[in-house]
């Protein structure tokens, strides 16, 4: 009965048989609204209107309450927002403190994007879930689907269903009232046999089997994570895990000595390591050296130790009274001019002054701070104006800058050779400022001394 009939059929003979209710078909939205109004006036409360599109105004006729969905959205948003901030705070400031550029562990703005997105996401979940649940969905079996005409409810027809439990319901009277309200056809709603509305047994068993099967992988993963195994772990991408190369500190069967790290071949110097001029590079007189290492940048201690071992003197780092003192150069191995000294001053103030102080008195800011902290591990730098330092040959000063002394680290990796010499030249000038007398000043400059300040 897909087309509505205009003639009113006689009441069915089996009207005594219990029915679930009545379903009346209408051809337009106006008609269904008018009929609903009439039926509500006639005292029907359990009626439901079906339409292919939302009919505005029907809610007023049905006296329906506003759904509570906005509250669901609000709760979802509140959980999302607070959850987002909580994650950012607990995960990055408490459980795994993330130190980034010394910024505060937790701050509001950078946590906002995640909290905002979560607020929207959870509010949307609440709205979506709330709509589905409050609509009574999913509901695959519905007694109305047994009425063929009802298929047009999602197409172009409008329906009113009245449930038989409605207090005003009386099959024959209701039927005629529906026709009077302008219905194009009224049908009985069948009562579903409870057995009929059950899911087929095969479907249940399949779903059960699938559900149990789906549990197997997580169980296996859980087992793998909480037990030990003697088999090596799986390499999904073998050539990323096992790359064909020899790493440092490992063995290599290709070489007789079995080392993967190759020593330098005797008599060779690596590219860029050639340091022919010992006076310039090491501050030692060239003719005093006789070993291979004189040609490279090696730590002078190597040479010292080698000479100590050959002489049977116990090694000691103390400035050697008993040790053979290296033959330090006493003259600068490069031309000293005002430009070099100015360069040295600039470098000194960058690299040295932080500990030694601008004036070389051992009162740099780092030193002052270290002494203030009283940590006990800090060795105050010797004043650069002290007698022993003043008397050190320039080669030795150069060596101290390069390789350090006592707690002072070497600066060879940070300051190039010529700059180290520039610093030495400035240091000599600095020392001179404390000991020089007016006789040391050239006579033509002396009258202008005050202006030179």
């Amino acid at each position, binding site marked *: 009965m897909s087309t509505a009939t205009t003639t009113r059929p006689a009441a069915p003979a089996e009207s005594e048989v219990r029915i679930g209710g009545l379903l009346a078909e209408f051809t337009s939205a106006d008609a269904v609204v008018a009929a609903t109004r009439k039926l509500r006036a006639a005292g029907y409360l359990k009626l439901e209107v079906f339409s292919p599109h939302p009919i505005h105004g029907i809610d007023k006729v049905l006296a329906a309450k506003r759904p509570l969905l*906005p509250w669901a959205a609000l709760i979802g948003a509140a959980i999302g927002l607070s959850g987002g901030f909580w994650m950012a705070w607990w*995960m990055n400031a408490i459980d795994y403190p993330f130190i980034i550029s010394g910024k505060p562990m937790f701050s509001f703005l950078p946590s906002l994007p995640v909290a905002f997105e979560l607020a*929207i996401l959870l509010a949307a979940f609440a709205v979506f879930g709330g709509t*589905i649940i*409050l609509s009574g969905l999913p509901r695959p079996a519905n007694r109305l689907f047994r009425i063929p005409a009802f298929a047009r409810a999602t197409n172009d027809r409008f329906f009113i269903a009245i449930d038989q439990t409605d207090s005003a319901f009386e099959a024959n009277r209701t039927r005629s009232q529906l026709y009077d309200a302008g219905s194009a056809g009224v049908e009985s709603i069948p009562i579903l046999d409870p057995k009929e509305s059950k899911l087929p047994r095969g479907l249940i068993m399949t779903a059960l089997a699938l559900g149990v099967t789906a549990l197997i992988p997580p169980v296996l993963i859980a087992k793998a994570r909480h037990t030990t195994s003697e088999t090596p772990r799986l390499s999904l991408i073998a050539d990323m895990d096992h790359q064909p190369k020899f790493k440092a500190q490992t063995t290599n069967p290709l070489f007789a000595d079995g080392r993967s790290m190759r020593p330098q071949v005797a008599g060779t110097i690596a590219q860029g390591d050639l340091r022919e001029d010992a006076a310039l590079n090491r501050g030692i007189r060239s003719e005093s050296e006789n070993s291979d290492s004189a040609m490279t940048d090696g730590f002078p201690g190597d040479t010292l130790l080698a000479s100590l071992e050959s002489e049977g003197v116990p090694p000691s780092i103390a400035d050697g009274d008993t040790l053979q003192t290296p033959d330090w150069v006493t003259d600068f191995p490069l031309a000293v001019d005002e430009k070099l000294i100015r360069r040295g001053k600039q470098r000194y103030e960058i690299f040295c002054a932080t500990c030694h102080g601008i004036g070389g008195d051992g009162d740099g800011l780092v030193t002052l701070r270290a002494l203030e902290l009283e940590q006990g591990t800090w060795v105050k730098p010797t004043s650069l104006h002290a007698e022993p330092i003043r008397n050190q040959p320039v080669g030795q000063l150069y060596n101290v800058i390069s390789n350090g002394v006592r707690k002072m680290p070497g600066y060879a990796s940070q300051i190039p050779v010529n700059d180290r010499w520039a610093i030495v030249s400035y240091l000599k000038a600095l020392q001179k400022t404390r000991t020089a007398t007016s006789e040391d000043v050239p006579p033509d400059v002396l009258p202008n001394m005050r202006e030179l300040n």
Partner: protein
Amino acid sequence: MATATAHEVDNTLFDPAVRPPLVTGEASLGSITEQVASLAERPHPPRAWTIAFAISSSLTVMLFGLIGYLIATGVGVWGNNSPVAWGWPIVNFVFWVGIGHAGTLISAILFLFRQDWRTSINRFAEAMTIFAVTCAGIFPAIHIGRVWFAYWLAPLPNSLAMWPNFRSPLLWDVFAVTAYATVSGMFWYLGMLPDLATLRDRASTRVRKIAYGIASLGWTGSSKQWRLFEMAYLLLAALATPLVLSVHTIVSFDFAVSQVPGWHTTIFPPYFVAGAVFSGFAMVITLMVPAREFFGLKNLVTLRHLENMCKIVLATGMMVGYAYAAEFFIAWYGGNQYEQFAFVNRALGPYAWAYWTMVSCNVLAPQLFWFKAIRTNPWAMVGICVLVNIGMWFERFVITVTSLSRDFLPSSWGYFAPTLVDVLMFVGSFGLFFTLFLLFCRFLPMVAMAEVKSVLPAEEDQNRS
């Protein structure tokens, strides 16, 4: 398809006294159901669909093959290398995410502004959004290199006892794109429930009955369900509106929060959002014009719909053009020499060809929409919109590659060159996009039937009374 598709009706004339119809021809509730639902019910697809599907699904297979190759070999198969560590994959990601903005914009923002003309195109645009976001999501996921650790992106308890950094825009991005894809999906599905029920009730085969029966969850269209549906739709629209604006804002943070010259600018969020809307609408027009032609939807998707979209493309195109100009102004006005160099280098450096392609496609081409003759000529629109999409891809290329290839250290400067894998993956992503889209056209209601029914002239009068 006999209904009112023979000739185009011009409903673009605007007379304030008369509301132009949103649906042309003699439409009734039944004719709309018939017209839209029968498209998804044909036993055999048209030949053009079959050919298009064969091509796009082959490209999809190629894409997944290349992804397998990438995973097994490593990201070295791409052209990404120092200093351009963000090459095509990120360009493609931003390109696709941008396209994915029009759908939610049409659905949510135009809904909130009560622009009823959106009803004919929103389903279409939302589908496009979801497929574009799917394509977008692939690139950052495989860009991480070791994809089997992709779950490290999420704040999950793990054996390293580590958590992701909540101050990183890349983490914000994970949340934003995931939330956007999920909310768009829910919005799309909820809006489609009544139409899926229509297909269920019309289904003639058992398979279709069961499939649409499950998908429609037993929707009946009762006044209670409609009441909830309408409120949920309004709420989701209200939630999706700030979301859609936030997503591309956060994508732009990926760039703007760094300190690379040309990226570190405050204009990025609005500029990216405008660009996203711009490219998204261009893509909707590119797809919509052929679809209404082939599927006979000219009475539902009328010239007025297309014209309105052209106006949005024109407006957002000029916003993008303004942003290009503003960037140069700020680079000069800000007095930062690195920033100045970055922009001079964009326009005149080794990538000048890309920059000027971008400017001509994005700023100059849409200016043609000032002319009504072009705004109402569907195929001219498609031509311009294809140009816009090319231009928008180049915009992301210019932003990503010019800045990275010329950063602070001249010693690390380089010239980026994509590999064949880069190119084929991008082509493959179009294959995936069109595959999903063709499946959508074949099996799902392309037009929101229930919504269009409520804006039919007769029903509209009833609804307004």
